């Protein structure tokens, strides 16, 4: 089942003096229920524009989108969506507890369940101690945590998060990643934008790269990582008398009595055969590949060219 269906979405902002900024150019994208989707792109690429359009904050100038089968123009499309804005700000005269209660009530969560969910999400985001203080007195990272808590409090099916990791400390980042993986396990859909490729690599099923309002790449993380495989780094002990049998391979490092060779993926079997034949001792094998960041930079360069 499709959780989010974006078809030909376009947005042109009208600037001052009649200037027009084409922030989004015919974006089409389907995201499945149970999928964690990373939305990558450089600054000003149109990530937030896409998300704001999905949430009904701005009206797209072209195209349409559905969330769980409902048109985004209707407020019922948001009934099962948890949204975290970028640099969020919440009614800061309320305490975290009050704000979460307000959000949960808006999603028709009632009674005991409401109290339980509020308490759970406060504890999960480590805001329990501060729950009786007005949000006004929170630090930036704490506000971000409130943002995550208010997404979790009503347990939606679809999560739309605009830079969920921004402003968080390493512990917080790890926590968010853990939460996302947990949501994935429970079959939820998570659609989040970020600049940090590492986060995508760790938690996402699929990734889309947007540059200047256009989707430049869309693939599963696994495929990208696999296609980026360059070869292996193999270390052997130089107890072997005749090292020159490996002359065809690039030496990465020698550290007597160990030698490390760079072995291209295509020649790995050949290399291992030589090792067996000359009864060399393999200390370890390490995969060498282009990471997502390199992939991302490549696409951005291509997209901007």
């Amino acid at each position, binding site marked *: 089942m499709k959780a989010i269906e974006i078809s030909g979405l376009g947005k042109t902002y009208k600037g001052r003096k009649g200037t027009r900024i084409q922030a989004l150019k015919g974006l089409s994208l389907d995201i499945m229920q149970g999928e964690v989707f990373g939305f990558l792109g450089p600054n000003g690429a149109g990530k937030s524009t896409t998300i704001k359009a999905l949430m009904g904050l701005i*009206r797209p100038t072209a195209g349409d989108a559905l969330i769980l089968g409902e048109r985004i123009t209707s407020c019922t499309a948001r*009934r099962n969506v948890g949204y975290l804005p970028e640099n969020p700000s919440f*009614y800061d005269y309320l305490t975290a507890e009050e704000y979460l209660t307000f959000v949960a009530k*808006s999603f028709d969560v009632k009674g005991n369940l409401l109290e339980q969910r509020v308490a759970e999400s406060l504890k999960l985001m480590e805001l329990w101690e501060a729950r009786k203080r007005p949000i006004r007195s929170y630090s930036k990272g704490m506000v971000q945590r409130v*943002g995550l808590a208010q997404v979790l409090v009503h347990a939606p099916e679809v999560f739309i998060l605009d830079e969920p990791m921004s402003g968080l400390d390493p512990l917080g980042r790890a926590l968010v990643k853990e939460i996302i993986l947990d949501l994935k396990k429970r079959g939820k859909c998570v659609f989040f934008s970020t600049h940090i490729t590492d986060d995508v690599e760790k938690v996402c099923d699929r990734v889309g790269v947007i540059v200047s309002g256009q989707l430049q790449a869309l693939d599963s993380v696994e495929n990208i990582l696999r296609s980026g495989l360059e070869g292996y780094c193999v270390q052997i002990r130089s107890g072997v008398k005749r090292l020159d049998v490996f002359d065809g391979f690039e030496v990465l490092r020698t550290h007597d009595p160990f030698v490390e060779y760079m072995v291209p993926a295509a020649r790995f079997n050949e290399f291992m055969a030589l090792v067996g034949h000359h009864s060399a001792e393999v200390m370890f094998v390490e995969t060498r590949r282009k990471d997502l960041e390199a992939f991302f930079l490549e696409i951005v360069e291509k997209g901007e060219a």
Partner: protein
Amino acid sequence: MLNLVEITLKSILRDRVFHGIIFSALVFLLIPSVASLSMRQMTELSMNLSLSLLSFILLLLALFLGGTHLWKDIERRYTYSVLTLPISRSSYLVGKFLGIAIFIFAVACLLGLVAAGVVVFSSGIYPPERPIAWDNFVAAVVLDALKYILVVATAFLFSSVGTSFFLPVFGTICIFFVGSASQQVYDYITAPATTDISLFTKKAATVVYYLLPNYSAFDYKVNAVYGVPIAGSGLLLTLAYFAVYALIVVALAALLFEKREMN
């Protein structure tokens, strides 16, 4: 929606608006001594001054709350988090409006009680020639509250399109003055004795008169202060006028707000 009304009331109370009101309500304590300057109508003067002060406080509240409340939500980017909840923008706007309206009404009732206390105190010192028309007093306070709720509605209308608080605040002030005087101008222009005004101007003035809120209709101070009887049917018509006009303005504001971009 109730949820939003509650949040709005909380926001007003936590903004220490109430402290400001209590502070300005201290002026009520001065009224008896000022009224004692009157030569023949101390009770009437105290009621006059009390109702005037009440009106003034309500005007400030209506301008301040009506003119800045929506703007603040947009300016501080609260709208990103609130308007993306599964509530329509219309119910958001109506909820906010109801919250402020309830607050204004409650303040009017509270200050009305204080004003009544001042009047009772003054009449104890110098008994009035005619009995105090308490029913008219209540009518004056309630209609005053309704008037300022209507002012909030117009402020919301401006807020729904304005990007700063200048438009809502100054627009509302302008409409307030013009709406308070429109009846007078209309009466003058349409009087049979007025002949030096072209037919077109008369028609235009009539159209403007019908379009603008008629705030002077809600002014029952004279009836309260001097015990001038109030026509029941007129009162009912005024209430109906309020209900319909406020609904139209709020509906229009909601419509415009629905169309608005949040960026």
